[in-house]
């Protein structure tokens, strides 16, 4: 199994979620995140005091899928999240050893 982690622009979350649902992914975990890459933050001024706000708001989305689906899911996410502008985010894939569904105790493939 693969853990797909995507950090994307917050306003693309709904597009990504809908695309994954269409693809057949049945669940995901979403957390609010902040960070920066090549995209710079912005400057705010309060009574003449300037603040460089480096960290930009993002959402971090995680799904675990069967090994064979990994590449396709990444594709789906990238297509849905892409705006072509700097700051679109990243998607990465990590191998997962095992997974358990808490309610039933089912493991691995059955737990997805």
């Amino acid at each position: 199994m693969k853990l797909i982690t995507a950090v994307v622009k917050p306003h693309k979350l709904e597009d990504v979620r809908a695309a994954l649902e269409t693809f057949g992914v049945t669940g995901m975990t979403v957390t609010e995140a902040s960070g920066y890459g090549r995209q710079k933050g912005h400057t705010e001024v309060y009574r003449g005091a300037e603040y460089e706000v480096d960290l930009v708001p993002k959402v971090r989305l995680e799904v675990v899928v069967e090994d064979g689906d990994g590449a396709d899911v990444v594709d789906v996410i990238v297509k849905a999240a892409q705006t072509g502008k700097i700051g679109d985010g990243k998607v990465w894939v990590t191998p997962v050893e095992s997974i358990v569904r808490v309610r039933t105790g089912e493991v691995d493939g059955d737990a997805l």
Partner: protein
Amino acid sequence: MEGMTLMEINAGDTAWVLVSAALVFLMTPGLAFFYGGMVRVKSVLNMMMMSAITIAVVTILWVVVGFSLTFTGDNGHVIGDFSAAGLKGLIAPDAVSGTIPTLAFVAFQLMFAIITPALISGAIADRATFRGWIAFVAGWTCLVYFPVAHSVWFLDDGKGGWIGDKLKAIDFAGGTAVHVNAGAAALALALVLGRRVGWRKDPMRPHSLPLVILGAGLLWFGWFGFNAGSALSAGTTAAVTFVNTQVATAAAVIGWLIVERIRHGKATTLGMASGAVAGLVAITPSCGAVTPVGAIILGVLAGAICAFAVSLKYKLGFDDSLDVVGVHLVGGLFGSLAIGFLGSAAAPSAVDGLFYGGGAGQLGRQALANLAVGVYSFVVAFGLGKLIDKTIGFRLTEDDEVTGVDQVEHAETAYDFLGASGLRGHNPLARTTVPAPVEDAPADTKEGANA
């Protein structure tokens, strides 16, 4: 009362002064929002509590000795006496001041005594002990506010306070007695308490600009009572000061935003709110002395000057956290001195300034009054602040300050942040310990029932 026409109570005047007292009262809660929005999340409750406790402490002081020391009798043209301590005799129907019951004047002036020390709290955001603040409010109000207000406002045909009655400096509603007075004390306390941990390094952005706007709105609204109520009658003077207050404040918003747009590229919400307050401060001493056109000039300049003045602290290295010096000391001083230039004999105060063909005499009187009050307030506030810090403690420890003054001084958190999916009213970081959980709770207790 028959035949004593001078002592007759006028219903319209009384109603206006009582309503004005309530308006001025509302300024202190307004100030709590104005300041509360400007601090970080971990300090908002303490910021508001500093205003709230000032209402409580000063109200009691005012009844017990404050009104008497400020507005009854005279000693050396700087302080009154104790003859009306406990408001003795003032609930009687023959206790009349001008055309209103003396007690209406007591209520109106009480609200000024409250907001003046409350203004100071903005200079020491995030880092003061609550007990230290209470001690300071009580001490400063007695040692500084009462004698200064007496000196400026107790008029008795040349036998009253030295600033208002002998020097004849004009302070219609409190540019000197309230704003320069509080601003100078704020500078002293900023120096006594020192800079906040991480000042100029950590971001200290306002946590809620909407709260700042709400506070500025309440201040603006209440200020009509502050200025127009100071006419102490419902007539022409009240109307002129009301209009001048509105005009100068509007002009100051524009003045501040123009400076900001030029210096930093954007007109900001905080700049708008700050400009409004700067204009209100500057028109306070002068609302009875200028024409509405004079108020436009005064307001634009006040907004622009204060927009520059708030940067001073970075150059000079003192952490006046919410710019009490830049807005109240500078704005109050400017508004007071402006009478010497923009004063018009056509206005209720009936003094011509330099631009209206008058001499420099009034400008000199205004300067001397503000210098005296500013220096006195600064010196006493500095000494009192040091004394409190050395005895009961005024500055939080570094650890407590980093943790947050709300938590260490009040054991509260302003907002329950629920996180990304926080619709369940369940904060995993806070467990309920009081009342103690029921040990033999039924097994089918629904999840979250205790939350």
